[in-house]
């Protein structure tokens, strides 16, 4: 049984950097602390799910991993690249599917991907774009303006965008919500693709889905990781129970709370 905020180290060779390494990460958004000291190590090829209630900090953590958000303090390394030492390496190593599609509605599917191919400086750009479109089954709508695509197609195209530069780490922020059946299958297939040794970190509310697709699950609550388990060790029902337990447990605070109650903004 793992304690709070501890990490599981897989069989990682000592000379190779783990896919994700996070130490004492603190992030403040506006006035609110969003991440309060997160420690995380993810071995290469792992599929990790972050599960937690709204406001737990899942999306924030993903954004920090993607290099979009600079933390207040702490360190983040993706395959050994950090924002300070090698921001370009970090950005190439991650692909993010977030809440926004990040696609221009007035451009066609193909044009959108071409822009990203160029921004990533990819060689054989046109070829890669075609491959990408085919892989997510949007090739027949390649010349349609993105604004005209259905939600499922849009999400598939977004996935294509995130994978275009073949990132080592794929970050999915509740990517499975609102998907049509085809897109879900596609997403699952992408996640299954173990041969590429791509690491996946995804967030979700859906524990059965998580049990299906993830190797490991980390429960997040109020800006911290409270527990981490392997899905192989539990069935879906047990996982749900563990999650409920983790949420119900009283938090282990660093120091005892002060007697003068400072009102927490909730």
């Amino acid at each position: 049984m793992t304690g709070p905020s501890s990490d599981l180290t897989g069989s990682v060779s000592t000379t190779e950097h783990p896919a994700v390494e996070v130490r004492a990460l603190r992030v403040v958004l506006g006035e609110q602390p969003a991440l309060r000291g997160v420690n995380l190590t993810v071995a290469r090829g792992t599929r990790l799910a972050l599960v937690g209630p709204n406001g737990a900090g899942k999306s924030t953590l993903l954004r920090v991993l993607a290099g979009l958000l600079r933390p207040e303090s702490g360190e983040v390394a993706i395959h050994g690249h950090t924002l300070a030492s090698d921001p370009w390496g970090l950005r190439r190593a991650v692909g993010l599917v977030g809440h926004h599609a990040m696609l221009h509605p007035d451009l066609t599917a193909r044009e959108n991907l071409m822009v990203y191919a160029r921004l990533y400086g990819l060689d054989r750009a046109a070829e890669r774009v075609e491959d990408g479109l085919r892989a997510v089954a949007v090739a027949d709508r390649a010349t349609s303006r993105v604004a005209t695509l259905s939600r499922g197609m849009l999400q598939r195209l977004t996935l294509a965008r995130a994978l275009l530069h073949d990132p080592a780490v794929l970050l999915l922020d509740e990517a499975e919500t609102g998907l049509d059946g085809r897109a879900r299958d596609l997403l699952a297939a992408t996640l299954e693709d173990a041969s590429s040794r791509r690491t996946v970190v995804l967030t979700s509310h859906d524990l059965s889905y998580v049990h299906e697709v993830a190797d490991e699950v980390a429960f997040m609550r109020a800006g911290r990781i409270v527990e981490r388990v392997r899905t192989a060790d539990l069935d879906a029902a047990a996982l749900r129970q563990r999650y409920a337990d983790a949420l119900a447990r009283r938090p282990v605070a660093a120091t005892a709370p002060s007697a003068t109650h400072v009102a927490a903004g909730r």
Partner: protein
Amino acid sequence: MPHAQGRTPFLVTVRALVWRDLLAEYRSREVLGGGTVFALLTLVVFNFAIDLRLENAAEVAPGILWIGFAFAGMLSFGRSFANERERGTLDGLLLAPIDRGAIYLARAITNTILMGVVELVSLPVFVALYNVRAAWGELLLTTALGTIGFTGAGTLVAAIAANTRAREIMLPLLLLPLTVPVLIASVKATAEALGARAAEPLPWLQLLAGFDVIVVAASFLVFEYILDE
């Protein structure tokens, strides 16, 4: 696994972004349509506000022209960054291994080109409505230089204003005082292009070119501090 290394080359990035923005504008014609109509409307309405007699037209009219361009410009810069935020495409750019300054430069170039189109349509109308004679070469050059300066600063300020609560107010409030030198020089140079000869003429065009270099260089250097999360 990586198919490319390090930072994507600067010019490649700028070209890709300019292509994207111009293509998008071509599809939607949002800025061109709105901007042109607005500029023309300003020219017409000011005619009622200011009494122009034939003798002083060349002196007074340039001011009206540049007010029209300034307001049409501010309208269009404002929209472009607001759209980026709404669609989340700015995040898409920030994810990519590109120079942050390239984002600024590409946007400034696009805005300048779009403003240029608006002005190309407005200038003949202006000359006709206000009954002035123009040395067209000088007039076009002046307009181009003035636009580069105004748009260069405007792109930077619009990026800031896009993240504020009262975007529509913040943009003019911040931009207009800062671009007074560009506006003064543009108006004076335009007046010369329309035939107004001052007692001691100053090299307004050269001054304008100087301002442009300073404005664009400063904005480019400072832009990354605005984007950093």
